[in-house]
Every structure is written in structure tokens, then in C-alpha cells.
């Protein structure tokens, strides 16, 4: 047993400096395409490359609806003028009318994770928050198996037909105040799977979503950013807000 202790001590501290410091290690995030105030290539070609309609155009500007982005890289690879790429990870946005949890909660927050049909990647990135690199316990976040103890419902996946009941039950069993965090493109919009006959168009079909985490999958630090937003310890991203607020049906800006 003691050899394990030594092994553990030898490893030292690997934990990220985020949120108090910066984290820029390569490979921590897949990045996200970024809105471009001026794009000097052919905007039409660029927009047509996106398979999910995440790119829109407005007077020479290119805007990105990050909640639809699948990280397919078609707007950045194999194209003469690639879109600019945000290599950060603070992408969690808060829905209008939603707020962080009350201040009394902020040092110890319990999270109930529900897999509503994810592909395994979003869930894996969520699981990695317990990894020594991220160690969310140090920030007072804990995953709980019982909804009755939970403050945050973290949902991954587009919400499949078969998971609707279990998801609603988990939400109903949680005490108030509670918050819902939708993690990943599928949970935000149904992704490439929904809406369909057995797949929903994301969590907001069923539950009131407070915080949205874009990404396919969002890296652990983005999920952590979302938790910190709900804890009132970080401000939400403005750039990943749903573009639909400003974009009309034809894809033009209002």
C-alpha cells in the first residue's frame, strides 16, 4: 500500500491553475470557430461548407451559432480562407432570465449527471472533471448519485424518447433552488440526431435550461466554466450566446 502513497506523492501537483490563473496547455480544447468582423474570402462558400447551418452572414460579417457547431473543421480545413479559430474554452452562456445559484450554495454544489443519449464523449469529458488535472472537488463541486441532494442537473445528449421519463423524474426529485446545465451540441439543439422520431431537439424541449455549454464535445474546462458561472464565480461568455436572438429565418441579421 505504501508504494501507492509514494507513487502518488511522486507525481506532484498536476492540477490546472484555472480559474485563478490561465490555462493554455495545447490539447485542452478543440477550440471553436469565431465570429469575424471582416472576412476577406467568399462568404457564401464559407457558409455553404457548414453542414449544420452554424455560420451566418451579416454585412460582410460572419457570425457563428456555436450551439450548432459539431467541430467538423470544414470551415477551417481544405478552404483557401479559413475562419478564425478561438482556441480558448470559456464558452458557457447563461440563458436570459436565469441567474447563478444563491450565494449560500457557492462553496459546495452537488451535481446530478444524466445521460440522455450522448455519444460517450460529452460524458467522458464530464467524468474527467474528477481527474487530478481538473479536480473539481477543490472548487466545491461534487457529483452525486441522488437527485434529492443535487443543486445542478447536468444533462448530456439530445434527449432520446426512452430517456424522457428518467430525465423528468430526476429534475422533479431535485429540491429548489435548482439549475439545469445542458452540455454539448446535442443537448443544446439535438445536434445531428434530432429532432427526429425518437430524438428530441435538446434539453430545453423538456426542462428549463439555465446554462448552455457548446462544443462537440465541450472540453472539461468549458464544463467547469459553466459550473463556475452557476456558482456566480465567473461571468458567462457573451460570444456564444444563441445567435438566433439576432438572426432571422433567412440567416440575415435583424
Amino acid at each position, binding site marked *: 500500500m505504501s508504494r501507492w502513497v509514494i507513487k502518488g506523492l511522486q507525481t506532484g501537483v498536476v492540477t490546472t491553475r484555472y480559474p485563478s490563473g490561465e490555462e493554455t496547455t495545447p490539447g485542452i480544447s478543440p477550440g471553436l470557430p469565431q465570429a469575424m468582423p471582416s472576412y476577406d474570402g467568399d462568404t457564401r462558400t464559407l457558409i455553404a461548407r457548414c453542414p449544420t447551418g452554424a455560420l451566418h452572414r451579416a454585412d460582410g460579417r460572419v457570425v457563428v451559432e456555436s450551439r450548432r457547431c459539431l467541430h467538423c473543421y470544414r470551415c477551417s480545413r481544405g478552404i483557401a480562407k479559413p475562419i478564425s479559430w478561438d482556441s480558448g474554452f470559456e464558452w458557457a452562456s447563461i440563458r436570459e432570465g436565469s441567474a447563478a445559484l444563491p450565494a449560500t450554495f457557492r462553496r459546495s454544489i452537488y451535481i446530478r449527471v444524466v445521460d440522455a443519449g450522448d455519444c460517450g464523449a460529452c460524458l467522458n469529458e464530464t467524468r474527467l472533471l474528477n*481527474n487530478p488535472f481538473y479536480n473539481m472537488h477543490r472548487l466545491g463541486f461534487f457529483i452525486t448519485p441522488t437527485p434529492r441532494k443535487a443543486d445542478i442537473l447536468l444533462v448530456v445528449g439530445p434527449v432520446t424518447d426512452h430517456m424522457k421519463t*428518467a430525465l423528468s423524474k430526476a429534475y422533479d426529485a431535485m429540491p429548489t433552488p435548482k439549475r439545469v446545465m445542458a452540455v454539448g451540441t446535442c443537448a443544446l439543439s439535438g445536434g445531428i440526431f434530432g429532432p427526429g422520431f425518437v430524438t428530441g431537439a435538446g434539453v430545453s424541449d423538456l426542462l428549463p435550461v439555465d446554462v448552455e455549454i457548446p462544443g*462537440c464535445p465541450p472540453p472539461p474546462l468549458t464544463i467547469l466554466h459553466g459550473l463556475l458561472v452557476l456558482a456566480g464565480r465567473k461571468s458567462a461568455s457573451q460570444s456564444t450566446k444563441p445567435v438566433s436572438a439576432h438572426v432571422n429565418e433567412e440567416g440575415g441579421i435583424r
Partner: protein
Amino acid sequence: MKIQEIANQAKVFWTDVEVAVADSSLTLEFRCKPKEVAGLCDWLFNQQNYHFSGLVVEENAIWELHYLFVGQGEMGRIRVSTVAPLQECRFPSVSVAVHAADWHEREAEDLFGLVFEGHPSMGDFILHDDVWQEGVAPMRSRFDPVSALANRKPRHDWRPKRVVDVPGAFVMPIGPVFSGTEESVHFQLETIGEEVLRAFPRLFFKYRSVEKIAEGRSIDDVILLAERFSGTTAFSHALAFSMAIEQLSEVDVPERAQVLRCFFAELERLRNHLGTIDGICSSTGLAVATSQTAILEEEALRLAGFLAGHRYLFGLAVPGGLSRDFDNQSLRESITRAKGIVRSLDEIEKLLIDTSSFLDRIEEVGIIGKQQARDYGLVGPVARASGYCNDLREIQPYAAYDACTFDIPRESEGDGYARLRVLLSETKQSLRIMEQAVAHLPDGPVFTKSKATAGVGLAGVETPRGATWHWVRLDEEGRLKRYRLITPSFTNWHGFHLAAENFAFQDFPIILATFGLSVAENDR
């Protein structure tokens, strides 16, 4: 025996059987009448030692059923195919003789409304009976989702079948939502108290109808699905789909791309195995080992992210090659990093096999025998831990695997410890392949443009969890008419109950972890 000799023998036994070349001389199609399918499959599986890999059902102008078999090297691949008019919905069950076909036939019953006569247990499977009535058959072309949803008649009183019938026995249900960050799946633990006698998974809570969504879509759309229905093995599945499409376009994928495909497939295997090993350590409550392996898993993810931009290698494999090239310097650098990961894992391994409290938990737990593994057609590390080996990289090499030297680790005990040892050894072999790939990486492009023509493409890839088969039928407009996904998790979940018999309740998470299965990959 060579595939041609087997074909000749078959023609002697079954005079009606027609043999046709499918896509190459190593893939034959045995065409027969529905009533002969079971006998022919039985013969291939039980006499000729073919591995059963799956069933493809297609509703074209007529029913087409293809039972897929694969053998070692020159035994090649065989499809036993049969047709019937669409009004004919009854077929004799093959699974009576080839048990590995069991779940495939249940799936076809649920999704196409076919009846397999003689099959012992039809009913609740993919579409849950407490949510849907029988006979919905969503994969039928006449299926209308609007009226299906409007006329939904769930059976709220539906209860799963009980298997154990002894006094005092009761069922302990687990899931679909259970501890921590597990995928959604339900288990019926049939128990008499301390000891669990049988445990059966009830899957498909995550059924997203991927095969249905793919219908009528373009290749560019479907590769997104191929990559994202099982995100933890995205590269392998995107590769399998790309290879199936490449068969239809007769494109020569550049050498460099083929070698890099091996490199990234092995990086994915390494990362996936680290995750599974981490799960095993965590299931036994070994805290330091868990965090140590977790560190390595994250390092492998960062390595993929640093190199390819995406931690799970999304957007990389495409029909015709890869979506981008890599400079040799960063590839060499990544070998150094991968070596570091495997070296650290080695140290952890040494400590693990010295920790008797750990070994006590995983030894002789969840045993699957070799014969059972074969009967169920199990694949991947789970099968190899039971001494049953059918690694596609070896028996039907693709990409650049025939130019690589590597071992395929196998064990014979078939218990949790054997599965762990196979995983540990495979990480070393993956590194070995990655090193060879980078050392012998040819120059040149990584992508050839091509156009696929109408027809059927079928490709098999050894994913980290075992063999997957992607069947693609493309129509004249270049859209998918049928996309059939045979996945290793589907295959191995079928055999999971074999490992979960007569065990102590606290061993359940350990048995589960040593299988390292994905629910998303199963449910599709």
C-alpha cells in the same frame, strides 16, 4: 481452407446455392433460399469455423437478408444472402444454430417487423414495450413517424421477464440513471440476497435511430453520424465508413494516409484502453491507481488535441484519406509523448500486479470461456481474454496493418484479470505500431478526390472494443439507401450476461468495468 474450396464444398452439399463474387475474390456471396439459410450458416459457423459478424436486413424491392461471416486470411469473407417478396415477413431463425445471430434477429424483428420462426425470445428490445406498442417497425420504408407518434399505445404495466424461479428470489433493478457519470442502461439483477444469480442488461435507452437518420443523406452528412454515434471511438468508425465508401469509388488512398490512419487508430486505442483501465481501478476503489491512470488518459487526449486539433479525433478520417496532413516533426514529438504515457502505465502495472487486495477483486470474476466467446461471436479484448481471437487487423488487414509488425495479446482465463492484462499489453502494441508508422511514413498527399458510384460497400475495422462492420448502399444520386452499423459493443453486450452469473453484489461494477463497453455504440 481457402474460400474457393469452401465454396466448392458448399455447392456439393446445397445444390441450389449460387456463389457470386461480391467485391473481391476474397469476398463471396452465397445466395440461397430462405429455408436453406439456417443450415448453411450452421455449416459455416460450426463446421468451417467462420466467425459470425452480423446480419444486414434491407428492404429494397424485395427483402434482402445478408448473414455476414469472416474467417482467417484466405478464408476471406462470406455473405449468406437470401431474398423474399416484401409481403413475406417470416424467415426461419438462424440463431438456433448460430447463437451469435440472436440479438441481430431480435433487432430485425423490432425495427423491420420480421418474424424469425423458432427464435426463443422476441419482443421488448430496441423499442421499449412500456413506451411503444409492438409492430412499429420504424426501419420500414412505409413507416410514418407522425402517425406512429400520434397512435402511441405504451404498455405502462409492462415488466421485464423474470428468469430465476426459486423461492426467495427477487429482482434488484439498477438504472437507467445510476451512480456518477455512467451511461444510461438498466440492469435486472436477479438475486436471493447476498448473491446475484443472473444479471441482464436492458439497453437502448439511448436509441437515436442512427441508421434511420442516415437514409437519404449524402456521404458528407453521414460521415458526421459515423463519427458521432460513438464519440469515444470516433476515428475507428469514421475510418470504417470511409473505407466502405472507398470501395464504391475505387479510389487509391495515398500511402501516407494509410499509414497515418494506423497511427491515429492506435492512438485512439491507447486512449480508450487507458479510460477502461482507469474504470477498472476505480471500480475496485483503488484511489491512487485511479488518479494515476486518469492522468494518463487526459495526457492521451491532450496529445490527440495537440496533434489533430480534436481530443477525440473528430473530422479527421474522410473517404479518400484524411482531412489534413501532419508535419513529421510533431508526429515524432508525439511518439515521445506516447512513449512517456506507456512507460508510466508500465510502472502502474507493476504496482497493480503487486497489490493483492486489487487482484483479489478482479481474479476469477466475470469468467467467460473460450467456447462461450465463440458461440456468442464475441470480439475485441473481451474475446481475446478468453482465448478467442478474431482481430481484423490480423485476419483481414486494412489500411497499412499488413506492413506493421505487432502481436495480438491473448489470455485464456477469461476473467476480469485476463481482460485487464489484454488491455495493458495492447497499449504497448499500439505504441509499437505508432512508432513504426512514424518511422516509415512515406511522403506524398494524404487525400485523393473521388466520386462514389451506386452499389454496396462493406468494411470492417478493429475498433478499440473489437470489430465493427459498416454496410453502405448508395443510390444513383450518391445518397445512402441503407446504412447498417454492426458494432463491437452490440456484439459484446449480448454476451455480458455470461460473465454476470452467481456473483457477489459488490463485484457487479468490477465485471462491468472489465468489459469496457459503450452503451452509445450499442444503442446507435
